[in-house]
């Protein structure tokens, strides 16, 4: 048996021998990109696309209509899966076997009557996973440098850009809670309870327990 002192050494080192939060997020992101490519093939036999946009500005109406139709046969890239006993080499190769045939579309008919006033801003585009990972990485670096104000600022940016739809919400929440705990902010406990309710089996929990143990 290993003695208690060596046991303590090993227990102390275990977490640090594993990946940090940023690495966990990056690996997850990269896996998501790879398996996203390997998703079930999507066959689109024929698509007619009609787009109509109506813009109402200051009482006047400007109508923009674009009508196009395509006949398209497309199959998403098909991934060659390695046999059961093998593991794919990295990076996962993507073999695109099905050609994409697209008939030349008829010329678009565009009818525009643009109102003289300024158009309202376009609807915000959803945050990308790349951007989320960038923000998680930045928050992690700020945490390492003990720049709590910067951590809070980055988290606010994430929350604004993700608008509740981020895939790395759990990672950023964990960083936020850790930052609050490091600052001895009592709000941390409320957020921790919410975190537990939303992600009851989160892998980050042990880190948060350690970070927040000083709070009453």
């Amino acid at each position, binding site marked *: 048996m290993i003695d208690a002192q060596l046991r303590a050494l090993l227990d102390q080192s275990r977490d*640090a021998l594993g990946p940090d939060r940023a690495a966990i997020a990056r690996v997850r992101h990269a896996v998501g990109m790879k398996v996203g490519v390997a998703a079930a093939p999507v066959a689109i036999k024929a698509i007619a696309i009609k787009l109509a946009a109506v813009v109402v500005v200051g009482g006047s109406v400007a109508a923009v209509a674009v009508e196009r139709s395509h006949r398209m046969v497309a199959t998403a890239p098909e991934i060659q899966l390695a046999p059961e006993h093998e593991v794919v080499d990295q990076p996962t190769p993507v073999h695109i076997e099905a050609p994409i045939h697209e008939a030349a579309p008829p010329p678009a008919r565009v009818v525009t009557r643009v109102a003289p006033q300024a158009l309202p801003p376009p609807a915000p585009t959803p945050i990308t996973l790349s951007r989320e990972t960038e923000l998680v990485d930045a928050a992690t670096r700020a945490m390492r440098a003990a720049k709590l104000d910067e951590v809070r600022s980055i988290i606010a940016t994430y929350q604004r850009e993700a608008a509740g739809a981020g895939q790395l919400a759990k990672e950023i929440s964990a960083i936020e809670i850790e930052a609050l705990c490091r600052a001895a902010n009592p709000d941390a406990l409320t957020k921790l309870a919410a975190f537990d309710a939303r992600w009851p089996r989160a892998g980050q929990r042990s880190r948060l327990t350690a970070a927040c143990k000083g709070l009453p």
Partner: protein
Amino acid sequence: MVSRTNAPDMTTLAVSLESGSANALTFDEVYEQHVGFVWRVLRSLGVEQAQLEDAAQDVFVVVHRKLRDFEGRSQLTTWLFAITRKVAAKHRRRVRPAASADLMSTADPFRDTARAEAAALVARILDGMDDDKRIVFALVELERESVAEVARMLGINPNTASSRLRLAREEFAAAVKRERAKGRGR
């Protein structure tokens, strides 16, 4: 019973494990609960620090692809280990690193300094062990797997696993003693 969801994306792929509990296990849960295990095992199997992310990605791509086939007849960690070992074989370093300096470079000032130093010490010692002893030691002492399960993972006789563990423990204890003596400047 193995059930499949229709959606192939990461968060909804679910597998119902036959053994023990009837809880569905999503890919996300497998990832979160075992990414640390995979990472440390890759390291123990000789993958360089700089390659760990790529290697971990490869492991979890395979996990994602094969999770629906996992029927729970073995422990999940045993199944993960099998995948991890194959991936590690492709990434394994040719030359052992002189020191695990990059562990310290990822040290977080908020982390207990003692923890970071402990990890660097343990990593240095593990790097100095031969492959057979290192992996048994890491699986038992870091991942808290039983010797019987480790023997199953490695496909070796339990007596062989016990013997390697005993030798690894002796080597580890002696190495810690030497390192600490060095630290005290004797």
